[in-house]
């Protein structure tokens, strides 16, 4: 390799351009992340989708006693989902990566729970109306 690659890029226009581009992406992402974090409400309604179709809708604000149920897909794979007052989570699944299970019980509406191998998605909305939630 020639000598020019041996030093870290020096201060030139290309370095400046690339640094600014990456900083821009970073700041934009961080801003969106923070906005989402502060505007996310408590988990209100959970909608469970499988293959893009709604299979179950649960109002999390009115759960008397925690319970679990299992969603089975057509190829026999399963996800066991636990519901309690104000929270929902996947407790067991036969997928290889177990990402959904590792998310634990989710109490905020910031992120959906997804199980990519089983095409399962749990969307969590806060129970306030959309306009109020956006204005908070």
């Amino acid at each position, binding site marked *: *390799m020639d000598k020019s690659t041996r030093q870290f890029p020096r201060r030139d226009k290309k370095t400046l351009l690339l640094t600014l581009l990456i900083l821009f992406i970073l700041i934009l*992402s961080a801003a969106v992340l923070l906005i989402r974090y502060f505007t996310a409400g408590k988990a209100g309604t959970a909608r469970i989708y499988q293959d893009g179709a709604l299979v179950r809708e649960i109002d999390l604000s009115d759960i008397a006693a925690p319970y679990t149920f299992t969603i089975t897909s057509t190829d026999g794979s399963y996800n066991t989902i636990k519901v309690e007052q104000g929270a929902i989570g996947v407790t067991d699944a036969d997928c290889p990566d177990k990402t959904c299970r590792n998310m634990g019980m989710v109490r905020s509406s910031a992120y959906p729970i997804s199980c990519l191998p089983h095409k399962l998605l749990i969307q969590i909305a806060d129970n306030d109306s959309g306009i109020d939630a956006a204005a908070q």
Partner: protein
Amino acid sequence: MKIRHMAMLAMYTTIALTIFTIESLLPGLAPVSGIKLGLSNIVTLWLLLYASQKDAFLCLVMRILTASLIAGQMVSFAYSLCGGVFCFCTMAVLFRIFGKKYIVFISVIGAVFHNLGQILIAVIVLQSFSILSYLPLLTISGIAAGTFTGLCTHYAAKRLTKDQVWLP
């Protein structure tokens, strides 16, 4: 394709596959799929530096194919392939524009596009845009991971002289 060339590419694919397998055995860094270091991208960057874009692409696709065969997951194959091709195309274009001096930056932007490609496949598979809310998180983790793999490649290239490197 010469035998020597083919053997070298097979060797680099094996290195990438080994790195990939060991990394997948480590516990996840965060409870969100997609947040990982992506260390096997070092091999792709390395081949971009020392071989050709064609070689780097072949090695990447073969690594993804063999990794999915070992894991036995066709779903993860789609994610890996889409992320990998997105990442590679971005890096190849940037490599042509900026050249090898900027390998760290190229790695960072490539990693961001890798995660973007995977999210787009997730949108198609789950048929829902709500998964896009992971994008900011995955972009930031991509920048961190891309910086790390880029610096690994940069310093490995800095330490080795040309006669110490296996060239396909």
